[in-house]
């Protein structure tokens, strides 16, 4: 892991906070995984364990006014964009205190005030939305950039291609970040693409494309920062492909027949949290003891979030028809 030039607001203290945030993301999803295994939560969920660096690292370099669009695998993005884990957990429990008043669930958590334009149940559904949000920024001169998350699978939807072209010809301030975790639900990138790098598609739309190690916090932060500032300065969009891996199955029930246990073990060795910790300790801004303490704090925050969610009320059935129209 190399020490890149990071923006000034990424202080040493911030780096340490980000380390804790990565644990918060991991523990959130580990907890949700347990609840689903026990049948305690309704519906389905998609966990981002193993992909913490793409969420935490890329959102860390945004300004507060910047926005994101997320995906079905969005808990990490949501936490990184400033959502509180108690209201997120409450949403998964379908409680009225949740971000969507219990109406959205895991796949639809949004925090519009904080610039999180929502997770999305439709693969590729958020990509054109990001382009539209970037159009607003440009037309109203608001100076914000939109960071658009999507998976490798989504890069084969028409919405991806149409959106990249549109953003390119209009020079919109949007950064497309493809979290290539090697699989869609089961389709591997080897089976679904005849190219090595999805980022190579950038060329077809006349924009820069970059491939990065998505499990390297520093590389993620640095590359995304550069891209975001490129977009902010009016030079148009950038496509970043972050290579990573989802440790868990696709959703709640997945026998993972489409990949090997050996491959999973190989990727576990590239644990983004462990690597970031080693970097911070090397850099002298974190000690083993402090790291352990932060991890425990994160664990406790998730436990508290669960209590909050459990103790929150169910939405009244009378609210069913509310919020359909503005």
């Amino acid at each position, binding site marked *: 892991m190399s020490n890149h030039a990071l923006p000034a607001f990424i202080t040493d203290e911030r780096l340490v906070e980000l380390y804790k945030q990565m644990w918060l993301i991991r523990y959130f999803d580990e907890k949700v995984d347990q609840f689903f295994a026990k049948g305690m939560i309704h519906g389905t969920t998609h966990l981002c364990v193993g992909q913490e660096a793409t969420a935490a690292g890329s959102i860390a370099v945004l300004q507060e006014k910047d926005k994101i669009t997320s995906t079905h695998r969005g808990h990490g993005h949501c936490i990184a964009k400033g959502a509180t884990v108690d209201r997120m957990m409450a949403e998964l429990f379908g409680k009225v205190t949740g971000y969507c008043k219990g*109406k959205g669930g895991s796949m639809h958590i949004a925090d519009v005030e904080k610039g999180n334009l929502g997770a999305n149940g439709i693969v590729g559904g958020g990509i054109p939305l990001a382009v539209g949000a970037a159009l607003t920024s440009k037309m109203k001169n608001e100076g914000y950039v939109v960071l658009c998350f999507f998976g490798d699978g989504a890069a084969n939807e028409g919405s991806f291609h149409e959106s990249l072209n549109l953003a390119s010809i209009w020079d919109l301030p949007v950064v497309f970040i493809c979290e290539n975790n090697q699989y869609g639900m089961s389709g591997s990138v080897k089976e679904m693409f005849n190219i090595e790098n999805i980022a190579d598609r950038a060329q077809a739309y006349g924009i820069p494309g970059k491939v990065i190690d998505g499990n390297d916090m520093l590389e993620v932060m640095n590359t995304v920062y550069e891209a975001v500032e490129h977009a902010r300065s009016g030079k148009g969009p950038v496509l970043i492909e972050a290579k990573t891996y989802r440790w868990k199955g696709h959703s709640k029930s997945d026998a993972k027949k489409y990949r090997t246990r050996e491959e999973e073990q190989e990727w576990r060795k590239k644990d983004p949290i462990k690597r970031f910790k080693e970097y911070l300790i090397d850099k002298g801004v974190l000690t083993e003891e402090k790291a352990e303490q932060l991890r425990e704090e994160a664990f406790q925050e998730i436990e508290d979030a669960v209590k909050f969610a459990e103790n929150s009320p169910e*939405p009244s059935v009378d609210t069913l028809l509310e919020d359909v129209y503005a």
Partner: protein
Amino acid sequence: MREITYLEAVREAMSQEMRKNEDVYILGEDIGVYGGAFGVTRGMIEEFGPERVRNTPISEAAIAGAAVGSALTGMRPILELQFSDFITIAMDQLVNQAAKLRYMFGGKGKVPMVVRTPAGSGTGAAAQHSQSLEAWMAHIPGLKVVQPSTAYDAKGLLKAAIDDDNPVIFYEHKLLYKTKSHVPEEQYSIPLGKADIKREGKDVTIVATAIMVHKALEAAKELEKEGIDVEIVDPRTLVPLDEETIVESVKKTGRVVVVHEAVKRGGYGGEIASVIAESEAFDYLDAPIKRLGGLPVPIPYNPNLEKAAVPQVPDIIKAVKETVQFK
């Protein structure tokens, strides 16, 4: 006779046809070793290989269109669309292409394909994975629309759909996948456009589709205790619609409740009610036609809200009583 699940019946209908007819193949997302999002195609890639069980990228527009194009040129594709909500992305290819090509070409060419797709709420998958959009497709001349409610019907209707020379949208209700019924082992076909009387009765007709057939049957059991004898008509296919069976039943009972899970506004129940109102059954009606359908709201996540968004057994009981008591 042996019992199998609705899911197994769908798989068996496909597999038996694929063993006989090399032109039949299936394509869709995650239908290979994963076995499809609901497990319907489990084991099929092992039997038929990746040429005939084609695992596709997440590209609904392209795979729907590829199905149309291959159907037009001699294949008989079965497209598994992972959730029926994603039909939005395949819509141009189905509505502007598949449905119209033959007509626009002056009766030349044909598009023998089936789109199998899971629909409905009740799984907690929320607003973008729980819809019942069949009325959209039923609105389009050139498409046929099937909604089986039992394993037996699923197998026979799917065979008929595959044999049909037109594009057929075949809706599978997710909550029915695990339901069982007696299903013959050999192939059989249930003609599209033939309704089934799922329960005979004399006091009131319920016309119910898909999962609502089961809810209506439950309601009928309760109502029987109160001396109300319910007849349940399952159209099984919306296009073509067996108007005659519906009209005859209403003529017999003089009272009718139409129920589906889809949002009531603009739902297919409006069409069924109109068919009845325009027919000779109108003169036999002793009460206004009643329609039950989903509330005008996206399907919410919370389980209590989710249930409240679509008709449940007590709603059907209440509607039937109101209809029966109407003076």
